[in-house]
């Protein structure tokens, strides 16, 4: 794994030297505003209550906790996608993609190196969001540590898996802005980050189930909002891991084609 380690170290150095503040604020702000929006509507519009059906649809009566965990997961997802899926297109823009492709190094260890650095950074950034939520008065119950750890791990696999085909799309199209924001808007709607997906029309619910973030969220909420033991979330855990690995496999299969396309575009430009 020297490639993964070297990439992790390289990205860590780069991040320390030029921390992407605008990305950070750009992802923290929606998270914080989502929590504040929920808080204000809960207080001023709901009068400190939620509808009776919410408990049935979401599995918890704690609306603020539900939205806070969802906002954190959304921040984690967008942040990881911005690091991992954009790693290669960033290399392309800075002119180093070809230096990469010239080497005999494989792509998976490279992406794992990027992911690990992104994961460590994102965990630090998530504490900012939870800190803000705490200051605003949101209180979360004590989680089940084992289930939570398993959930975080599953979420990591899910998001990294999803990022690999997205990376292929980005370098093949030579475009990141539209791809990333469309993805963020789509998962923000269908994966149930801020509301129970049961509210959606059925086709959108199914679409959500095809994205590994949906099952990862169920595990994370079960762990953090009602301290569910590992056995209770096993099915969702497996579903999430399976989907994540499947996305990664599809992505790795397409990546060489996408890379060739990127080089051709670079050459004919």
């Amino acid at each position: 794994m020297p490639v993964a380690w070297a990439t992790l170290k390289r990205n860590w150095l780069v991040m320390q030297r030029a921390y992407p503040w605008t990305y950070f604020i750009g992802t923290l702000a929606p998270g914080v505003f989502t929590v504040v929006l929920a808080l204000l509507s809960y207080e001023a519009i709901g009068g400190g209550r939620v509808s009776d059906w919410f408990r049935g649809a979401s599995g918890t009566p704690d609306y603020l906790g539900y939205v806070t965990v969802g906002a954190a997961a959304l921040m984690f997802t967008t942040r990881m996608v911005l690091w991992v899926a954009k790693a290669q297109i960033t290399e392309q823009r800075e002119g180093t993609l070809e230096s990469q492709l010239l080497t005999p190094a494989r792509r998976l260890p490279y992406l794992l190196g990027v992911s690990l650095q992104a994961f460590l950074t994102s965990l630090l950034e998530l504490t900012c969001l939870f800190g803000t939520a705490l200051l605003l008065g949101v209180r979360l119950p004590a989680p089940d540590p084992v289930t939570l750890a398993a959930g975080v791990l599953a979420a990591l696999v899910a998001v990294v898996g999803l990022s690999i085909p997205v990376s292929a799309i980005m370098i093949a199209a030579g475009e990141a802005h539209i791809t990333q924001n469309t993805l963020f808007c789509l998962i923000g709607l269908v994966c149930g980050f801020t509301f129970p997906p049961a509210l959606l029309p059925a086709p959108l619910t199914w679409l959500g189930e095809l994205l590994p973030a949906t099952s990862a969220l169920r595990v994370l909420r079960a762990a953090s909002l009602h301290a569910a033991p590992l056995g209770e979330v096993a099915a969702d855990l497996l579903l999430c891991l399976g989907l994540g690995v499947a996305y990664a496999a599809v992505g790795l299969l397409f990546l060489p084609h996408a890379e060739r396309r990127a080089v051709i575009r670079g050459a004919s430009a």
Partner: protein
Amino acid sequence: MRHALRVIAAEALKQHRRSFGRPLVVASMLLWPVLQLAATYYTMLPVLDTPGIASRWPDAAQPARLLAFLAAGAFAYLFYFSLVQSAWHFSFERISGTIELLFLSPASRLALVFANGTGALVQNTWLAGCFAVAAASAGGALHVAHPGMYAVAALALVVPAIVWGAFLNSLLVFSRDSAFLYTLLDDPLWFVSGVRLPLFAMPLAIKAVGLAFPLTSSLIVLRGALLDAQPLSALLEPLALLTGLCALLFAATAALLRLGEARAQRTGSMQLY
């Protein structure tokens, strides 16, 4: 004045050539807002079915009216956001060096930044505009006191948006970092302006900050005139505030352009993208 009009026409044509039918316009002006609007709507639903809602917020008692409220917010926000996006593109001119060429020409700088904003607004929002009019008519959400109020709502939305866009462009003459436009003006803007939440639900401090942005008052007029059938007399207050803000922003734009160009001539900062 004739020269200024020619500048505006030329700039609009340039924008048309550059952005018409581009995937970015369709995605950012139609697809993303619709997906976000749906997510906002569903996120709010759980707090609506609560006892006493009709007295706290009559609009929320009917899902259709709530949706219209949120859609009006999303629509007006789109106008302002399209200008943030156009300013972001304007910053590319700085990077690619063409901004220097613009400043080489004798064209009025004020006309240039206004032309850029107007061109972007027309280019970017016509699609969403058609969509919104069709959706609003089909949904029966419009309640208007007098046909003239359509014009009032349109002017209250378009004029301040253009002034806002010119102001953003003039800021870019100073700074080469355009990312701040996105990060500072995207999320905070919708939050403080009452795009997704009625003003009554917000703490006083946020409300005060929000009133400094023209989008807040534009939205009050738009919702009042088109959704709540309010007459002109009921909207005089936000309209007066809008007029004042526009005058202030216009003056600031003119001043910033003068200062910015003088500074660029002194430091040569314009060519160093």
